[in-house]
């Protein structure tokens, strides 16, 4: 889907995550980058350097917001103060869409600061879809929900992860931020076929794709974002592009961050899979 209502009919190419170690080079040398993804929470502050840098970035680049703590899957409604600050940042950045994760992360106001996996139950579908709708209504732009990497599954689950994702996005009428690295990591941790997952995703709802690196431990994979993208993930990405079409793609690199040039070069490898995408889009 080159453009759809879940990415506000934009046609963004390959972007990278805006990270502090790269501020200097970006502001000084103004490298050619199609767009930057920012972690919303890093800029939901009232003053200081982060907002100052962001304003300079916004003068030169297109920015899309990605959140890490809205916790759509919490069994509570979204925090109003959090939403107010998020909406304020949306007005500042002009982000065409925003994303956060298909997960939960706080209980009774106490935060884990993690992206915890959902039990794939019908009740969870209802809570999650309702929370996404509330966020979408408040911010006034399309919201895309991202599948997470997970290391645990629940006895209570009544469906697969991809069925859960489909139920949620249909009921919330929202977009999908398809993280192909997360699909791969979870497929290895839970023993499912990543291509079955991918083929179940409603392509018309995919607003954006994430690629990233992970770490292989003896008995599980961990989503660390501290490596280049590994071959099996590129293969899944290629399959996704073949199915979905040219889609805004973002490389996440959050730990042991190399130079800006190295991160950007890694992201641009996605170009290998993009040129023919429009001709074979579903």
């Amino acid at each position: 889907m080159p453009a759809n209502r879940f990415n506000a009919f934009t046609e963004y190419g390959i972007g990278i995550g805006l990270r502090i170690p790269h501020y200097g080079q970006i502001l000084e040398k103004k490298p050619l980058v199609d767009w930057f993804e920012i972690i919303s929470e890093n800029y939901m502050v009232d003053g200081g350097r982060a907002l100052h840098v962001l304003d300079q970035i916004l003068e030169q680049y297109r920015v899309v917001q990605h959140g890490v703590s809205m916790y759509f899957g919490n069994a509570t409604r979204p925090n109003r103060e959090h939403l107010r600050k998020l909406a304020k940042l949306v007005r500042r950045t002009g982000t065409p869409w925003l994303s956060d994760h298909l997960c939960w992360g706080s209980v009774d106001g106490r935060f884990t600061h993690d992206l915890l996996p959902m039990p794939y139950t019908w009740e969870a579908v209802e809570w999650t879809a309702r929370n996404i709708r509330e966020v979408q209504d408040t911010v006034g732009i399309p919201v895309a929900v991202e599948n997470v990497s997970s290391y645990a599954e629940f006895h209570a689950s009544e469906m697969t992860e991809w069925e859960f994702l489909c139920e949620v996005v249909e009921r919330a009428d929202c977009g999908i931020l398809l993280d192909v690295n997360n699909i791969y990591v979870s497929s290895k941790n839970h023993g499912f076929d990543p291509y079955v997952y991918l083929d179940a995703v409603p392509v018309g709802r995919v607003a954006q794709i994430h690629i990233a690196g992970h770490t292989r431990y003896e008995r599980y994979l961990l989503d660390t974002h501290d490596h280049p993208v590994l071959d099996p993930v590129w293969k899944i990405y290629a399959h996704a592009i073949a199915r979905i079409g040219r889609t805004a793609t973002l490389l996440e690199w959050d730990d042991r961050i190399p130079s800006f040039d190295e991160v950007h070069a890694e992201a641009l490898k996605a170009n290998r899979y993009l040129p023919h995408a429009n001709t074979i889009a579903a």
Partner: protein
Amino acid sequence: MPIPSRRSVRIRPPNSVQPKLRDIQRAIAGALFRSLNSDEGVQPANAMVAERFIKPNDRLSAIERLQIYHQQYWWRLLGALGEDFRGLHAVLGESKFEKLAVAYLEACGSYSWTLRNLGSRLIAFLEERPEYTRPRADLALDVARVEWARVLAFDDPEKPRLKAEQLAQTPPDRLRLTVQPYLNLLELGHPVDELLSNLKRISAAAVGDTVAIVDRRQRKTVIVRRSRAPIHLAVHRANFSVYYKRLDPEAFRLLLALRSGATVENACATAFAENKKRPGQIATQIQKWFADWMEFGWFCSLNSP
């Protein structure tokens, strides 16, 4: 009215009996919030939660899967707290700081969506629980106060600055000034500003002595002695960086009085109530302070919300 399209992928089974989502989340979060055992082994209560809610697979038991999240929670929060309170870490040493951090996080947790606020209750915790910082409780508290002030000064709001002509338009007996939110005013018993600057310079590690902090590699020592007189410190922001500025006691009292809403005239009277200087000297001193503070942008516009 059109009915919104709701294409369900699966047929919902009727009357399925499930634990409530909130109960699952409370149980799992409760397990994560329990401290890790000293050897990062299994908490017995967590084993029960894992068995009840989490599926094992062919490589990991239920509790092992829960442990991945349990460890991530503690490593993430301990790391974030250690980053914000590096000076306190150095003063207490590795082991004591970790015990304090675990106790603090168990008792207070994180009630904000941002880790920026993780240390917001640490000062109150240190005041209530000095056993975690003895025999350096006073120093630890001073260091924590400065380090928390740094967090606030870094990104608290900056309101529109007061202009000189606005200041001149209102007589001092009616003029009330608002102080910038990012300006933190602290009275300390130790020269924490010097300590933190030295620690930053030599990347020091803590040792057992109560007053010396030594860089093990370079054998450099930072000496911390209780000051004979209280130190008055402004922790503030300029050009998006955090700075320390020592203040005279009268200047400190004046700024505190202004922040509490006193008129400029009353604030000056409060600040110099016990000062024996001649009025002319005092007036000159106040003029110089106000000139400096205006330059720093410490006063907000009178119309600021």
